């Protein structure tokens, strides 16, 4: 607990200073709220519209969850396939990289044309931006296995599957959690972006609408909510990691 506090204190202090400076700047120069609302106004208006914001947060969370789940399934399936087949590795890894060169900003509106305003286009966008770090993290994690460890398993009479199960899979878990953290931060922004392009509800479309009516304060309030979600999800990955690979933290502390 004390450690967590010590970790959180410096960034919180910086944020407080920045907000203070911002508040001071807006007050002194009497900036119009449509251009730049003060932090206090953002909080005040955000609280005022909390029902609407919450109603738009829930769909965003749902989209993020579904999209990221799809991405996890895809990433794992792909990484395992590639790990078992050198041919598939050669065939698929370049395509994986190529998938990351797609300009999502141009593709997202097309996805709406193809798949409508429902869940699907958003899931596709989230999967596109997040499955890459997960798949690559896992592929490298599996491949980082010590050759001699593989030999040891074979000398014990284990085939490729047992090697995977007893060595490659557990050894890749630290890589996976690093990849998971990268992926999950992309997931929320991916969801917001997908909604921004077109949706019935969600923080993304909410921001778009508020921007069009010059409610800069409400846009920023939604930004604060988005950032909070990302940080919480990011923190959750550490919790899950602690539960799934408790040995990792202990080993690191030793080293």
């Amino acid at each position, binding site marked *: 607990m004390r450690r967590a506090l010590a970790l959180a204190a410096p960034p919180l202090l910086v944020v407080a200073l920045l907000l203070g400076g911002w508040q001071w700047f807006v007050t002194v120069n009497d900036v119009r709220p449509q251009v730049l609302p003060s932090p206090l106004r953002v909080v005040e208006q955000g609280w005022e519209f909390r029902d609407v914001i919450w109603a738009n947060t829930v769909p965003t969370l749902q989209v993020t969850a579904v999209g990221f789940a799809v991405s996890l399934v895809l990433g794992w399936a792909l990484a395992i396939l590639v790990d078992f087949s050198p041919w598939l590795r050669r065939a698929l890894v370049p395509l994986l990289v190529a998938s990351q060169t797609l300009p999502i900003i141009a593709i997202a509106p097309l996805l709406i044309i193809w798949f409508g305003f429902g869940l699907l286009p958003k899931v596709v966008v989230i999967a596109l931006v997040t499955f890459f770090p997960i798949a690559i993290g896992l592929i490298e994690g599996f491949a980082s296995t*010590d050759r*001699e*460890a593989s*030999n*040891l*398993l*074979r*000398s*014990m*009479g*284990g085939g490729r599957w*047992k090697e995977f199960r*007893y*060595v490659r899979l*557990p*050894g890749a*878990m630290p890589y996976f959690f690093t990849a998971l953290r990268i992926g999950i931060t992309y997931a929320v922004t991916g969801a917001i972006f997908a909604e921004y392009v077109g949706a019935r509800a969600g923080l993304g479309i909410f921001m778009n609408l508020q921007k069009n009516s010059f409610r800069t304060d409400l846009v920023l309030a939604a930004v604060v909510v988005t950032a909070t979600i990302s940080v919480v999800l990011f923190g959750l990955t550490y919790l899950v990691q602690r539960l799934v*690979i408790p*040995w*990792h933290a*202990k*080993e690191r502390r*030793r*080293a």
Partner: protein
Amino acid sequence: MREVRVEGLAKTYGTLPVLADVSLRAAPGDFISIIGPSGCGKSTLFNILAGLAAPDAGQVLVDGAPAEGRTFGYMPQKDLLFPWRTILDNAALGLEVAGMRRRAARDRARPLFEPFGLAGFERAHPFELSGGMRQRAALLRTVVQDREVLLLDEPFGALDSLTRTGMQEWLEGVRARFGWTVLLITHDIREAVFLSDRVVVLGPRPARVRRVVEIALPRPRTVEMVTCPGFAAAEAELLAALREPAVEPGLREPDPREPAQQEPELREPDGEVHAGPDRSGRP
């Protein structure tokens, strides 16, 4: 326990011949060390015996019949204890891989913790153990698989010399107690003499057997024996065999006494090997 014979093993990787002709014989309870220059193919020999590589020629026979997969228990140079497993689960790994249930595998491994000096560390993780303990845990993992012959690839190579001496004494005792048959790769001549019934000297790559030296010292071996004349003579013989110049393939072994600079005078009475030029002028 049965007799294991290795006959005429040869192996070429690409265009690089690694093993030319290696034969060994291990009766039940034998302790055989294999020494040779670095990169001479000792590890390749073990890989073939452990079933990780197929030989181009030669065969491995157990009581006259070709060996099947479960003859050799292999302990690699690195301990390769997995950080995600406790020591007990690491020790039981080979049994689990062979299809035994985890609980049964643990029950098989557990009684060995006491003779291996690991009692109380069943639930520890590898990073909580000292180097010597990790090697003992790795050996336990090998032994519990109940193979005919243990293949130990420089098990003590990474340990400091005091720990290493302790481990050698411990291995001598525990081997006698359990009656293992052991093939040991080592770079340490003294270790080979201290532990072995026979030491097989391999020549430089492509490896063939240069000499087999019987170590006639009584058992159990003790640290005091290191200074006795028989011990020193064996060390000298091994050193001389190791330092023979390479022979052309096809030629037979030259007279080991031939090269003058390999006389055993280079040895100190305490058994240390000095081959530096500063010693060459000594009377």
